[in-house]
């Protein structure tokens, strides 16, 4: 039996999320005795080069989080040419009409659903704090250039609206990047413009961006008690915030186990290659709400 080698291609290799994912995959490889080649694929060209590179190394398949879900056909075309097996992680391929490509096994969370979880968490906390909906505004830090970001913020918006949140209290703050300072800059004018609201809720595609919004509210003298920010991922940015002395407007984050994603997909691919065991077509994972009170426990449970 020849050596098993698989690739793990991710769209943003610098992000904590993907670092965890790739590391977990390598650990699984060590355990089961196969090699994992970790590669970055920031755009279509880079992904195809990464696949070529894997082919040159005689890899038998790869796990991928694509930079764009519509790249599915092109990626699959190349993989079939090289006779490689493919599993998607986090983001699922779609066809031209926006339907998921069913014959590529997938493991991940739907952006919309995770967004909805964010929205639900906000709604619950608003009730707990007993806010009057008339006095609450929502700061939606958006990033229209990134389809997954749109899915997530749209999901959260849906939940808010479903819970009766007034649509004209939701304000967009389009950020130019996905980091804290760009979210801060985007949030500032929006907060300046709507000084008449007493409470704010904040959501965005990830924790860093929500944090930027929270920092902006602090800048305008809003009390931590008047702000509910909920992020997504469960990374260092959130841990940093939770470990501060006093609670801030960053209420919580919907954490997903990147470790589990990495470990599971690598394992599935390995058994598919070695034993021909085709993985489940679509495994949906869910997020766990992580707050100041439970973050260490959740972190441990998810292996982050």
């Amino acid at each position, binding site marked *: 039996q020849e050596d098993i080698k698989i690739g793990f291609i991710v769209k943003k290799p610098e992000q904590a999320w993907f670092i965890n994912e790739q590391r977990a995959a390598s650990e699984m490889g060590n355990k089961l005795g196969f090699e994992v080649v970790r590669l970055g694929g920031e755009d279509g060209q880079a992904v195809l080069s990464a696949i070529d590179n894997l082919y040159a190394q005689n890899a038998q398949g790869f796990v991928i989080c694509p930079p764009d879900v519509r790249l599915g056909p092109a990626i699959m075309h190349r993989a079939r040419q090289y006779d490689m097996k493919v599993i998607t992680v986090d983001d699922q391929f779609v066809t031209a009409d926006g339907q998921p490509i069913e014959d590529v096994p997938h493991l991940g969370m739907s952006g919309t659903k995770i967004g909805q979880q964010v929205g639900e968490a906000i709604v619950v906390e608003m009730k707990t704090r007993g806010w009057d909906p008339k006095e609450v505004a929502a700061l939606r830090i958006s990033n*229209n250039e990134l389809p997954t970001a749109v899915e997530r913020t749209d999901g959260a918006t849906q939940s808010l609206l479903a819970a009766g949140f007034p649509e004209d209290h939701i304000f967009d703050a389009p950020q130019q990047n996905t980091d804290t300072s760009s979210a801060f800059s985007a949030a500032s*004018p929006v907060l300046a413009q709507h000084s008449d609201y007493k409470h704010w809720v904040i959501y965005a595609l990830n924790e860093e961006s929500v944090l930027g919004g929270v920092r902006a509210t602090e800048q305008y003298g809003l009390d931590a008690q008047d702000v509910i920010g909920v992020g997504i991922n469960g990374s260092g940015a959130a841990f*940093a915030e939770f470990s501060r002395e006093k609670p801030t407007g960053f209420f919580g984050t919907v954490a997903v186990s990147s470790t589990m994603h990495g470990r599971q997909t690598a394992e599935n691919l390995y058994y598919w290659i070695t034993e021909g065991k085709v993985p489940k077509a679509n495994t949906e994972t869910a997020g766990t709400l992580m707050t100041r009170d439970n973050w260490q426990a959740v972190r441990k449970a998810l292996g982050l």
Partner: protein
Amino acid sequence: MTANRLTEEVGMSAQPAGQQGLMKLLRTLLDTSGLIAIFVLLFMALALLIPDFMTGRNMVGLLLSITLIGSLATTMMLVLALGEVDLSVASIVAFAGVVAAVATTSSGSVLIGVISGILAGGAVGAFNGLVIAKFGINSLIATLAAMEFVRGLAYITSGGDAVMITVPAFFELGSAAFLGLTLPVWTMLACFLIFGVVLNMTVFGRNVLATGGNAEAAALAGVNVRRLKIIVFGLQGVVAGIVGVLLASRMGLGDPNTSMGLELAVISACVLGGVALSGGVATITGVVVGVLIMGCVQNAMGLLNVPTFYQYLVRGAILLLAVMFDRWKQTRRQSH
């Protein structure tokens, strides 16, 4: 021009003295320094047309939002005046922030954290200067290499994830306020002042401009061009370090992914402010106005809720139009 003359005549005959004075002031402004005029007009237009623009909290927010670009633009001005360019600033900001976060957390001392961050920035800057001055490497390529390298260092230092800061005093640094303005704003104002003075009133500053205008001439006249370059890049590094530390403290974390693409925004602001990329020409008022124009436009787009995709168009167009207007002013003045 005809339009201008018309305005003037109308002003002379029909309007009260106060307005006439204003008109005249505007015209002189437009004639002597096109860019300041653009800015004044822009600012007045925004103040009139956008209700929330002139509010106190928006002004505070506006000021805060330009602190990064503003502070960095002052030393970038020196770098450009020297006829060089520095693409590594954004990476230095990220790296210095990460270093400060790690050092603070591991030592427990804010002072050590702040100093390490600034030193890290200064070290990268001085290294850039050394490579450029000593080996004669083109600065665009040297700092492009540094941009990659230092971003890599930031990732490695942080392990890729934002570094949490557990010492509360560190956060207070970025939000410490004096006379209603926070430390980052004061830092930016200090940079404007210091580097304005440096450029115009010191031998060092004049030597920078002379070297940018004609490096050979400066060297022949006995200016130590090498040392000058090392110092200027070093200063740029130090300022980027300070900016990085303040950013980390404001955001409460050292984020290795932060400020991507900031270098181009900083360079744009300078060029918008009339700094010549070929070296030898720079003014601090120009740079301040360049920074303000960019900040105001971005802020106004936020207030007006301009759709994201159209913001790209507006930013591109403003940049081009402002520079074109400035050129047009110059040729007009020459042909007088």
